[in-house]
C-alpha cells in the first residue's frame, strides 16, 4: 500500500511536470529569442542564443518609450485601485448600515448592472466622452475605471461588512467619533482582508486591460504598457528580435511582482472567486 502510494505520487509529479513545462514553454521561447538577431531566429528559433546580446532590449526600450509607458500604467493602476477601494468601501458601508429604501435600490441596481458587458457600453461611451472632450487623458480613464470597478467592489465589501458586529462602532460613536471618523478609524482597518482581495483582482484587470485604454488614449505619450507593446509590435512585426524583447520588457515587472507576492495573489483570486 505504502509503496503503491509513493509510485502513484511519483507518476503524478512526473505528469504535472510535463504539463508545467508545456505551460512555461512559450515564455521560455520568447526569452531566448529576445537576445538573438533576426537571422539567428530564422535559422533555428529553438536554439539557445549564441551570445547574450542586449541590443534588442535597448532598441525596444527606447522605441516603445518604455519608461513612460510603464509610469502611465503605474499611475493609472495605482490611482484607479486606490479610488475604487476607498470609494466603494464607503458606499458599501452606508448601504449596509443605513437600510434606507434608496440604498437598497442602488445596491440592487449596481449588482444587476454587472451583467452588462463592456461591449454593450463602449460605443456610446466613446461618443459621450468624446463629445465633451474627455478623451485622451489618463484621468478620464481612471474615472472610468472607478465607474466600471465600483459594482463588484461594493458587492464584495457589502458581504463582508454585514459580518462586522455593530458594537465596536457604537462604542466609537459614544466616544465622540463622527460617522466619517468611525468609518476610517474603526471600520476601514477591519476591511483589510477584503480590500487586499479587491485590490489584487483590480490590479490584474487594470494593469493588463487593453480595449478601454485603446479606445480612450490616442496620443503616444499617454500609452500604457499593453498599448505601447501593441503599437510597437504592429510596426516591427518583421523585426522579431526587438519584438520579443518588447514582450519580455512588458512581462518582467509582472513576473517580479508575482514572485514577491505569489501567496497573496493566488489567495486574492481564490477569495474573489467565491461570490
Amino acid at each position, binding site marked *: 500500500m505504502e509503496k503503491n502510494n509513493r509510485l502513484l*505520487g511519483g507518476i*503524478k*509529479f512526473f505528469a*504535472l511536470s510535463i*504539463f*508545467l513545462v508545456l*505551460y*512555461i514553454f*512559450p*515564455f521560455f521561447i*520568447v526569452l531566448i529569442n529576445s537576445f538573438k538577431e533576426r537571422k539567428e531566429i530564422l535559422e533555428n*528559433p*529553438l536554439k539557445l542564443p549564441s551570445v547574450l546580446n542586449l541590443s534588442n532590449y535597448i532598441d525596444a526600450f527606447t522605441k516603445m518609450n518604455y519608461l513612460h509607458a510603464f509610469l502611465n500604467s503605474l499611475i493609472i493602476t495605482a490611482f484607479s485601485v486606490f479610488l475604487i477601494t476607498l*470609494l466603494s468601501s*464607503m*458606499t458599501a458601508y452606508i448601504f449596509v*448600515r443605513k437600510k434606507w429604501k*434608496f*440604498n437598497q435600490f*442602488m445596491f440592487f441596481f449596481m449588482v444587476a*448592472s454587472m*451583467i*452588462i*458587458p*463592456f*461591449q*454593450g*457600453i463602449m*460605443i*456610446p461611451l*466613446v*461618443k459621450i466622452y468624446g463629445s465633451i472632450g474627455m478623451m485622451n487623458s489618463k484621468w478620464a480613464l481612471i*474615472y472610468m475605471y*472607478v*465607474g*466600471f470597478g465600483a*459594482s463588484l467592489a*461594493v458587492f464584495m465589501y457589502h458581504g463582508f461588512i454585514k459580518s462586522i458586529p455593530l458594537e465596536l*462602532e*457604537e462604542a466609537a*460613536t459614544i466616544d465622540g467619533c*463622527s460617522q*466619517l471618523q468611525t468609518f476610517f478609524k474603526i471600520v476601514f482597518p477591519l476591511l483589510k482582508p477584503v480590500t487586499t482581495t479587491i485590490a489584487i483582482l483590480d490590479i490584474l484587470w487594470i494593469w*493588463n*486591460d*487593453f*480595449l478601454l485604454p485603446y479606445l480612450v488614449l490616442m496620443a503616444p505619450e499617454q500609452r500604457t504598457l*499593453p498599448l505601447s*507593446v*501593441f503599437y510597437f509590435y504592429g510596426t516591427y512585426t518583421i523585426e522579431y528580435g526587438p519584438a520579443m524583447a518588447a514582450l519580455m520588457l*512588458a512581462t518582467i515587472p*509582472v*513576473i517580479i511582482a*508575482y514572485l514577491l507576492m505569489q501567496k497573496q495573489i*493566488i489567495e486574492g*483570486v*481564490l477569495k474573489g*472567486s*467565491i*461570490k
Partner: protein
Amino acid sequence: MEQEKTLLAKLKTYLIFAGPTTFAFLTVIILPFLYGIYLTFTDWNGISATHAFVGFSNYLQVFKDKVFWTSFLLTLKYVFFTVILINVIAFFLAYMLTSGVKGQNFFRAGFFTPNLIGGILLGFIWQFIFSNILVYLGKSYNIPILSGSWLSDPDKAFWALVIVTVWQYTGYMMVIYISGFMNIPRDLLEAASIDGANTYQRLKNVILPLMVPSFTISVFLTLQRGFMVYDINLALTNGGPYKSTELISLHIYNTAFLSQQYGIGQAEAFFLFFVVAAVTLLQVYFSKKLEVEN
C-alpha cells in the same frame, strides 16, 4: 451610529459616503447604456454632427447580415470548446494538486502565470509560436500538420485561438476548483472509504456533488469571458485569414469603429448582451438547482 432624522441629513450622509461612487457608476455605466439604446435607432456614422432616426432598421440589418451570423456562430463554437476544455483540464489539475503531490504550491503558481499577463501580450507570444516555432518543428522533422502556419489556415487558426484561450484560463479556474476541493470535509471522504467506496465511487458520489458550486462559478466565468474575448483574438489572428476567426467582440469593434456604422455596431452589441445575459443566467439557475446542502 447617528440616526438621520430629516431628509436633508440623510441626503448629506448619502452624498458624503456614496456620492462619488454613485456619480461615477451612473455616468460611466448607466448613462452610456441608455444612450446606447438610443444609438441603435439612429444612423450615426461617428463624424457627422447630426443623425437621423431610423427605427428598427439597424436591428433588421443585423439580422439579415450573413457576416454577423458567421461571426456569432463561430463565437458559439469557440465558447463551447473553450468552456469544456478549460473546465475539464482545470478540474483535473486541481484534483491532482490537492492530493498531496510534492511541490504543489510551486505547480499552482506555475499554472496560474499566464493570467498575470494581458491578452495582447499572450496573443503576440503565441503568434510567434504558431508562425515560427511550430513551422520550424514541422519542417525540420517532417510533420505535415505543422509545416504550414496554423494562423494562415482558416480551420486551424480557429483551433489556435482555442488552444491559447485554454492555456490562458485553466490556471485561473484551477484555483477556483482547488478552493472547492479544500472545502470538502475530510471526514466525509474517510467515511466513504471506510464504507468501502473506491476512488471512482468517491469521486462520483462524494466529490462531484460537493463540487457543484465551484462548477457554477467556473463555468459562469468561462462562458462570460468566452463571449467577450477581444485582445487575444486581435493579437493572435486579427480575425484572419479572410475574417475566418473574427469573433463577435472583434466584429462589433470593426463594425462600429472601422466601418463607422455605430448604430449597427451598437445593435450588435445589444444582441450580444442579451445572449450572454440569457445564457449565463440560465446556467447559474440550473447549476444552483444541482447544488446540495453541505
